[in-house]
């Protein structure tokens, strides 16, 4: 239930209260709430867990009620609502929607993203309903609807964009031809125009008749939106346009219909100002609608991967149904070339599946019964059937899309400045316009006006303009040029492009703040096992003594270890298998605890183990000692092999480096990032691995629970630290780091902790994530500098700073052109981020 007000001015709100278990709890909650100022009645229901509070709106607010309940130890849960908000055009619109929603009782936070056209709202469950939030946004002049997901969202978004484009196209068709005719008519008596422009086109009534539809039809949207906002105390750039167009058109109309009214008469009609101003603003709107959707292309690409239909077996029949109708447990049939509709487990058949779009694995992956398949991947060769295990919003693709969308709906800390400026800008600009007007009215006109005055880039003379008209012109131009639309697009459009670029490479930023933080990193701490190394031992070296061959030594060791379940034994068996060696069965296998194993093959005794095992069996290993010590110094586990009481060689086993670990570490160091390795392993092994990678700082013998403390120590040195590790085991360290990077998360990304999730198990993506973060922040800085520079330079020019020296002023239509170009050029600059390629790029989608 929503917060509602009755005829006596009392409001009622229903709060959800969790944690109450008895009548005493009910009494405590009721008593506490009743003590709050303005609360006239409280009714708490234990069974439903609801508290209905009646209160005077002038007293305690909902936030105080919630705090009071929470102080008692109960929980008032919050819910999240994701909306699509259409019709926003600048940072002031964002501030307006956020302010309107945050003012609603029960809403705790609202974050609006302009390019994503989204609003993420948190509110106390039960305190307000979704319809109320949507209607509040509608009331301030925008169109709010619940955000859809998947292909439906894609279709709806496309439809809405086309509708906006068609609307602005229609406005362009009205505004531009008429505005050009008005301009030609206004300058009919100048240059070569008298030779081919008919005289009637210069008639003021004809000009007025052509200007009127331009100002009132394409311009109507600005009057409508600004009035909707103004009556609720909110302003946005529509108001700047409305006052600009309104003032220019009103003066033109007065000077046409009542030339003796004293506003400058027929010589100061400024029809072209009113018409071209509207035309340029509409052009800006059209260009924005055209380019804005492109920054969210990554999401669109991901959504487009989803299969639309699925073939399922139900009641023995194969049916073709919509992919979103597949239920968990359904048997799904997939043929060659088809896209897999949902996640599942293969039950029958064999095929190879291209999973590049999700995991980045470039080689098709073989699928046999028992193998997992991922929705949106493409079946290449054979047919198979699988049992659906995750459908709808639970599929890997849906989780990835949600994570990218959530990230794009957040705000980077750097955006706060832009939001603050934009939020206070409109009132500030009007105050400035008032100051400009008063200055030129009382001081400037008398001091500087000359009859030879002109607009910049225009032959139009201002000789007949009086003090009021002149001051008004400069005031209107200041309003028009000051629009903060570029400021509103600067940060979120780059964040969208950056997070989208990340998703293309299997790098999921959890929020805009992760993008910003990743750009500032100067230290990266890698967990060793499973991150830099494979996390499982494998055979690295085989050293045979004279009289034996390497493969023979390996085969003997593998045969001896075949019955063993020890990880080192398994590594040796896998090593022999990888060499294609035949591993025959042995007799009398014996695991000798702390020493090794013993087995008999063809009546010969094989021994595999440490020095002590050899000593106990009186086997001389003197000629193996130098190699043995060398392997141990490298951090490897070296095992001695003997056959029939004669030393045969050494097998060295170690956790091996991941394929691209060295490249990634080298690249990070070149980027000026300090690389640190952290591990629970002994120092010798840790140093050996670090030595192979060129890592100078090693934190060895660190217990899992101490990793976060080590990260903190690095942060205390002033470093901005990223921790790269397993998203589950390293959670505390990931949380402590400035940026937690969970690597190799696979497809169940929703479970991961960390600020950045790397889908693939590829260390190079750490480099890519930092590079994308840096590129995105670079773009944001460029955009903000451009947006601030535009306004900082544009406003003094529009206010007439050059006029005393040049006799020239900026016309309102030129101001509108600059304004439109500032947002378009900024959007185009952001789109350049699409061409950015990380240096170790491994493109996914």
């Amino acid at each position, binding site marked *: 239930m929503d917060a509602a007000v009755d005829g006596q001015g009392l409001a009622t709100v229903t709060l959800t209260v969790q944690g109450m278990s008895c009548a005493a709890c009910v009494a405590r909650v009721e008593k506490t709430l009743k003590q709050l100022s303005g609360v006239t009645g409280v009714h708490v229901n234990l069974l439903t867990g609801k508290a209905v509070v009646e209160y005077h709106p002038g007293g305690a607010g909902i936030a105080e009620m919630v705090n009071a309940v929470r102080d008692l130890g109960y929980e008032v849960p919050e819910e999240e609502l994701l909306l699509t908000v259409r019709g926003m055009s600048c940072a002031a619109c964002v501030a307006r929607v956020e302010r309107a929603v945050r003012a609603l009782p029960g809403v705790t936070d609202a974050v609006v993203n302009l390019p994503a056209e989204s609003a993420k709202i948190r509110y106390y469950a039960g305190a307000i309903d979704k319809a109320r939030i949507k209607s509040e946004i509608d009331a301030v002049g925008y169109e709010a609807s619940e955000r859809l997901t998947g292909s439906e969202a894609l279709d709806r978004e496309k439809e809405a964009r086309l509708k906006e484009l068609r609307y602005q196209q229609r406005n362009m068709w009205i505004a531009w031809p008429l505005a050009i005719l008005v301009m030609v008519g206004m300058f009919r008596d100048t240059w070569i125009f008298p030779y081919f422009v008919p005289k009637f086109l210069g008639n003021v009534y004809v000009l007025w008749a052509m200007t009127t539809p331009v100002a009132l039809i394409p311009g109507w949207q600005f009057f409508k939106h600004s009035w909707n906002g103004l009556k609720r105390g909110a302003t946005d750039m529509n108001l700047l346009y409305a006052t600009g167009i309104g003032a220019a058109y009103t003066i033109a109309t007065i000077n046409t219909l009542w030339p003796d009214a004293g506003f400058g008469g027929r010589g100061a009609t400024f029809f072209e100002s009113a018409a071209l101003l509207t035309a340029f603003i509409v052009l800006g709107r059209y260009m924005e609608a055209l380019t804005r959707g492109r920054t969210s292309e990554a999401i669109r690409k991901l959504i487009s991967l989803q299969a639309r239909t699925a073939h399922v077996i139900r009641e023995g029949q194969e049916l073709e149904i919509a992919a979103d109708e597949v239920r968990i447990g359904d048997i799904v049939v997939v043929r060659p070339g088809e896209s897999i509709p949902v996640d599942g487990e293969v039950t029958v058949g064999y095929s190879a599946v291209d999973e590049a779009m999700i995991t980045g694995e470039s080689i098709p992956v073989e699928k046999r019964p028992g193998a997992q398949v991922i929705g949106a991947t493409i079946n290449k060769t054979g047919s198979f059937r699988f049992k659906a295990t995750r459908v709808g919003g639970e599929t890997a693709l849906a989780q990835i899309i949600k994570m990218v969308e959530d990230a794009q709906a957040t705000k980077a800390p750097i955006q706060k400045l832009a939001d603050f400026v934009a939020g206070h800008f409109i009132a500030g600009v009007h105050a400035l316009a008032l100051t400009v007007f008063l200055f030129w009215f009382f001081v400037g006109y008398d001091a500087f006006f000359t009859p030879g005055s002109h607009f910049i880039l225009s032959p139009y003379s201002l000789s007949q303009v009086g003090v009021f008209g002149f001051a*008004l012109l400069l005031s209107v131009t200041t309003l028009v040029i000051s629009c903060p639309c570029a400021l509103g697009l600067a940060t979120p459009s780059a964040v969208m492009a950056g997070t989208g670029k990340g998703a293309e490479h299997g790098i999921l930023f959890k929020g805009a703040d992760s993008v910003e933080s990743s750009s500032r990193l100067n230290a990266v701490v890698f967990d060793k096992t499973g991150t830099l190394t494979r996390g499982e031992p494998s055979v690295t070296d085989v050293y045979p003594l004279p009289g034996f061959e390497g493969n023979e030594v390996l085969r003997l060791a593998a045969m001896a270890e075949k019955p063993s379940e020890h990880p080192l034994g398994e590594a040796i068996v896998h090593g022999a298998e990888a060499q294609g060696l035949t591993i025959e069965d042995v007799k009398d296998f014996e695991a000798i605890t702390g020493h090794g194993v013993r087995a008999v093959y063809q009546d010969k005794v094989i021994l595999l183990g440490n020095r002590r095992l050899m000593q106990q069996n009186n086997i001389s290993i003197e000629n193996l000692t130098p190699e043995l010590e060398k392997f141990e110094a490298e951090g490897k586990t070296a095992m001695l092999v003997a056959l029939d009481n004669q030393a045969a060689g050494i097998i060295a086993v170690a956790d091996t480096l991941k394929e691209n670990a060295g490249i990634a570490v080298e690249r990070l160091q070149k980027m000026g990032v300090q690389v640190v390795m952290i591990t629970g392993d002994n120092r010798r092994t840790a140093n050996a691995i670090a030595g192979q990678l060129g890592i100078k700082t090693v934190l060895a013998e660190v217990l899992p629970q101490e990793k976060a403390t080590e990260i903190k120590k690095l942060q205390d040195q002033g470093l901005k630290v990223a921790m790269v590790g397993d998203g589950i085991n390293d959670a505390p360290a990931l949380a402590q780091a400035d940026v937690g990077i969970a690597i190799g998360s696979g497809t169940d990304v929703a479970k991961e902790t960390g600020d950045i999730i790397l889908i693939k198990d590829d260390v190079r993506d750490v480099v890519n994530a930092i590079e994308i973060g840096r590129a995105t922040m670079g773009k944001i800085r460029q955009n903000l500098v451009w947006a601030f520079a535009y306004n900082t330079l544009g406003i003094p020019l529009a206010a007439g700073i050059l006029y005393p020296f040049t006799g020239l002023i900026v016309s309102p239509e030129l101001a509108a052109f600059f304004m439109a170009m500032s947002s378009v050029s900024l959007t185009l600059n952001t789109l350049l981020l699409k061409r950015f390629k990380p240096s170790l790029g491994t493109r996914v989608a």
Partner: protein
Amino acid sequence: MSILEDRTARRSIPIYTGVSVTMSLLFLAATFLTGKSYTAVSRVGGMIWVFILSMIISMPIVIPKIRKKVLG
């Protein structure tokens, strides 16, 4: 909630209108006090423009403050 909105509007209108009218009158007074000879149209046009801008400046300042008081 519309009752609260109405109450907000009722309380706000006199404030921002009053501020804007005062600004216009101050403008008018200034046109006489400066000693310059402005036409009646300049004076009236200026007053209207000052009134519009003052309304636009004061409405977003006044309404949220009043709403906050009304909604608590």
